[in-house]
């Protein structure tokens, strides 16, 4: 019994430390340009965590997450820019609509496994992207949709980087907390179980088919929320932000951070959003870097940085302590 309380206390403590860091960061950075970048880190964190629930926890690969991201953004964008709806109401509608789409698509798609599932989700993502491009009357097509209003609460309009930072990160923290909770629960165990052995999970009464669709739906809803937030902070969206490349970026983020590690997803999102900013001149190289990173981390650091770095540190420390000449043993 003590153990349970202990590990829960540990998780809560971790969360509060992280939350404290998140909420004091803008002050620390004196509200500079980096706060703007951190807003995007927040959005991508939500997306990466959503993918991690699906891929890291349940072991279901999805290469079409950008579709839900885009649907959330476009539904919010169109309802508010073209039809002057209340942004919060639009956000809820977007979340519900995407949830329904994910739930309905989930049943046939998640019957597939491994490569076939990857291809199906990829196909789904591309179809949605093409729809964004072709339904010019609604979405504005390749030229995009502009004039999306900011969100506001009680007269406070979220129109600056600082305000958007707190807005987006509130959602991100909520997503992280809910995901961490879900992961360490009966449902989380059932998901990890079906990841390891679907047949054994079924034999123990886990309704694998339904659970997969449920987590796919949740992942979709989180992604849609990220999309709505994106639309209202940037105020302009175009299909290019929701293409196949974005789905691959998200995959890379989750892999870097470590499959199954919720905080790792934040790390992955942060690294992949911050690095291109820090190395502006290398922006064209980013696609090559993603490829190399994906391969190298998958081959040599399967637990991602979250598990790999401490292991590497321990390994190097042991080397230093023993003072032996270094012997490469991978």
């Amino acid at each position: 019994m003590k153990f349970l309380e202990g590990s829960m206390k540990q998780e809560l403590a971790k969360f509060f430390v992280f939350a404290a860091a998140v909420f004091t960061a803008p002050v620390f950075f004196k509200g500079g340009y980096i706060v703007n970048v951190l807003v995007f880190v927040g959005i991508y964190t939500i997306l990466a965590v959503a993918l991690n629930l699906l891929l890291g926890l349940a072991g279901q690969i999805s290469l079409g997450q950008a579709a839900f991201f885009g649907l959330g953004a476009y539904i919010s964008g169109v309802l508010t820019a073209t039809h002057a709806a209340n942004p919060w109401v639009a956000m809820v509608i977007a979340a519900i609509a995407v949830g329904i789409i994910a739930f309905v698509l989930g049943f046939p798609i998640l019957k597939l496994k491994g490569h076939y599932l990857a291809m199906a989700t990829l196909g789904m993502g591309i179809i949605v992207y093409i729809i964004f491009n072709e339904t010019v009357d609604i979405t504005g097509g390749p030229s995009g949709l502009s004039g999306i209003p900011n969100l506001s609460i009680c007269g406070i309009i979220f129109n600056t980087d600082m305000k958007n930072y707190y807005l987006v990160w509130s959602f991100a923290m909520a997503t992280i907390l809910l995901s961490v909770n879900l992961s360490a629960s009966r449902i989380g165990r059932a998901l990890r179980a079906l990841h390891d052995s679907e047949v054994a999970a079924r034999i123990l009464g886990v309704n694998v088919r339904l659970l997969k669709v449920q987590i796919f739906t949740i992942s979709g809803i989180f992604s849609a929320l990220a999309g709505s937030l994106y639309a209202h902070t940037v105020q302009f969206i175009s299909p290019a932000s929701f293409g196949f490349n974005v789905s691959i970026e998200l995959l890379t983020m989750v892999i870097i951070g470590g499959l199954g590690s919720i905080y790792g997803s934040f790390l992955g999102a942060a690294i992949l959003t911050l690095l291109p900013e820090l190395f502006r001149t290398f922006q064209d190289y980013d696609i090559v870097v993603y490829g190399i990173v994906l391969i190298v981390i998958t081959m040599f650091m399967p637990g991602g940085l979250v598990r790999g770095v401490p292991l590497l540190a321990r390994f190097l420390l042991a080397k230093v302590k023993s003072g032996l000449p270094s012997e490469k043993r991978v």
Partner: protein
Amino acid sequence: MLRIEDMTKIFGGLTALQGVSFSISAGEITGIIGPNGAGKTTLFNIVTGIYDPTSGKVYYDGKDITGFPPEKLARLGMVRTFQGIELFGQMTVLENVMVGLHTRSQSGIIASALKLPAHLREERHIRERAISWLEFAGIAELAHLKAANLPFGKGRLLEIARAMAIEPRIILLDEPAAGLNSRETSDLALLITRIKDSGITVALVEHDMELVMEICSRIVVLNLGHKLAEGTPRQIQEDEQVITAYLGEG
């Protein structure tokens, strides 16, 4: 309790089972034996909902359960273990058993994500029950090891502890003694007997004759997809056809 009627299963060109019928009585340990390729595991797979039969029916407590999926059978109190143990390798021993308690708990996604008080209470309860099942199987000290790191014999015990956690009325064990040494096998025999004594019906597919003859009260013999014989251990040992089928086998 469990009745198999005229079970036939054909895979493409291979007839794995042909017209097999027999019953398993409640509260007993029934052994299903036969040379390799006799169709024993196929039979288990059909009963537990993993395959559909080509024809034939399975009755559980008089109810037709043919074609019911495994998760539905779990809620009706049927569970099985696998020949090549199917553990949740990346989870700890304790967590494996906690998954076994899935049908004995109900926190849904919302309660779990929000960590509502009812969910927290239930988690505590699940953990306690899981530990007691580990104690039942004699592996409580391994609770926090990763399941993939367990030695084979312990892994078997974990699979059984996990299966017991759903509080089944019938448990089907697929070659539980495979890969165990003689000491582990006698521990297994004791465990299975204890399971039967607690009121649970046991069906056992096995190759280890000593174990089967020792603990089973009834035995069904399959050969090449047909039922060859059925009876008490003594009757089976003296059955001419069975002896012939096993000639050359240990």
